[in-house]
């Protein structure tokens, strides 16, 4: 199959079209601009809809409408824009609408800067909106994986009738790597017989809704959602363990940060330190299994993030006191070097 060299943002856009995304609604923001620009060029030619909304709030609600109408739909933004979508995301979860939401994260809080960051982890994995809900969160760390996960994202969304978030960062969006758009066997997906397409002869009306005035009904609904979440937790958690076979120490990192951490792990290996890398691919559900797998032999964990420490909570919740968990992070758009992380690995070894 043909390998092409592409920017992450553009590869993501292309993958979405190939995955059957019919509508895109978004509002401009750096550093994800190449994505809508690509779709603005391509969608009209390929029978899809590209629409620049008046705001992120409008965009996410357009997503709601289109998802409710039964088509594959995507939106994309970066940190401040994603904050504005929180009410909408909560509605999408409440109404169980499948869609894909891309966050190419930048430095915060507030206007912050436009450099790469991973400081929206809490927002993505805990739900920045109100209510008991979860979104599936995918964290690619290469352009090829970005592409592959876009297909998965649409499938997972349809399978579970739930929004799926793709969490990237400025580097991943801007970097170029070779990528192959693999043909994928079509997955068996449930029919969208709940969609509001007009009755078209159907007896009962279809209704897309998240209101349940009777709390007994809302509790029932939430428990149903909760069951779905448990199923997702059981089935969909994904991770990769690198250099793990004989490892006694583990670095935990995701996305672009995992790439740098990997380089650091290789440095440490050359230095004779038995260290491996756990790279969560799904951030929710969090791959606790990865930790169970390595815990028997793991002496300590080092979480590395482009933030002041957010995923570290999930690592601690996975480890539950069975080994020390250390943290190293850079924030505000700064990116650690492999050497910095290597130093932290040495420190971890010293401490435990």
């Amino acid at each position, binding site marked *: 199959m043909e390998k092409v060299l592409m920017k992450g943002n553009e590869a993501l856009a292309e993958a979405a079209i190939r995955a059957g995304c019919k509508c895109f609604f978004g509002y401009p923001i750096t550093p994800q601009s190449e994505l809508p620009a690509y779709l603005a060029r391509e969608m009209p030619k390929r029978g899809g809809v590209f629409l620049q909304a*008046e705001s992120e709030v409008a965009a996410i609600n357009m997503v709601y409408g289109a998802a409710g109408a039964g088509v594959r739909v995507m939106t994309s933004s970066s940190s401040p824009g994603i904050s504005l979508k929180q009410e909408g995301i909560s509605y999408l979860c409440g109404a169980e609408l499948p869609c894909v939401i891309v966050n190419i994260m930048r430095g915060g809080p507030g206007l912050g800067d436009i450099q790469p960051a991973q400081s929206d982890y809490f927002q993505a994995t805990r739900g920045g909106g109100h209510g008991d809900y979860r979104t599936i969160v995918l964290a690619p760390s290469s352009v090829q994986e970005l592409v592959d996960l876009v297909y998965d994202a649409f499938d997972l969304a349809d399978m579970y009738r739930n929004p799926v978030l793709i969490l990237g960062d400025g580097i991943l969006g801007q970097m170029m790597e070779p990528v192959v758009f693999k043909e994928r066997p079509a997955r068996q997906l449930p029919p969208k017989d709940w969609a509001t397409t007009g009755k078209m002869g159907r007896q009962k009306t279809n209704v897309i809704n998240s209101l349940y005035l009777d709390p007994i009904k809302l509790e029932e609904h939430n428990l149903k959602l909760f069951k779905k979440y448990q199923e997702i937790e059981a089935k969909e958690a994904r991770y990769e363990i690198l250099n793990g076979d004989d490892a006694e120490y583990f670095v935990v990192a995701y996305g672009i940060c995992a790439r740098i951490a990997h380089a650091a792990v290789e440095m440490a290996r050359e230095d004779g330190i038995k260290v491996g890398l756990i790279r969560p691919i799904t951030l929710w559900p969090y791959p606790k299994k990865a930790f169970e797998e390595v815990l028997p032999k793991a002496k300590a964990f080092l979480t590395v993030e482009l933030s002041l420490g957010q995923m570290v909570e999930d690592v601690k919740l996975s480890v539950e006191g069975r080994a020390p968990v250390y943290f190293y992070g850079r924030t505000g758009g700064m990116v650690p070097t492999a050497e910095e992380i290597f130093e932290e690995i040495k420190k971890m070894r010293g401490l435990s």
Partner: protein
Amino acid sequence: MKVVFERPKSLQPTKTHYCPGCGHGVIHRLVAEVMDELGIQDKTIGVAPVGCAVLAYNYFDCDMQQAAHGRAPAVATGIKRALPDRVVFTYQGDGDLAAIGTAEIVHAAARGENITVIFVNNAIYGMTGGQMAPTTLVGQKTETSPYGRDPQMAGYPIRVCEMLATLDGPSFLARAELTDVKNINKAKSYIKKAFEMQLLGKGFSLVEILSPCPTNWGMKPKDAVDWVKNEMVKVFPPGVFKEPKEG
């Protein structure tokens, strides 16, 4: 015997939760009648707002989506773009459309989005218990303007039809009043026209309807109707604000 009047089939037989004398019931019926008359029930998707009409999805007998507060025009845009050959309408109150949803309605109109908006202006927030709306009249007392709306502090009512008429996107904009048989019929004719515009692909259409909220105005139903006729109409003159040029 000829039927002079019966329940339109696009309206579910369900009883509504609206208060006695509330205009929402009449407006629901008018919309349903138009759907029947145009034969579009089966291909129509409605969008319910957050407001007293939130349960509209239980009342209209067509597919429905319930939208976040103020975002019905965005939701309708999403539906229409996904399914351009369907008929899509929103049903919104004045808080929903003219306060939190201002950007969404202005931009749906500016885009000439090919949808129809039923805008129920009752000069107050009904569902939340009677707070000031963007359309509350100067001097009107509400929960959050307990001394009467003071323009120095709380500004002036927004005239939605007039505002949207400055844009190129809308094909049809009109305001009616639910005050008597004649005006109710006129409201219906506007609603019909608005849906027709959509069917012709002419772009955005909106009908604003001045409607009583006896409960939160603290009035008897009859007095509420009179208040629409005597007070609201002064600030919100009924009429057609935009229609396609002939020919």
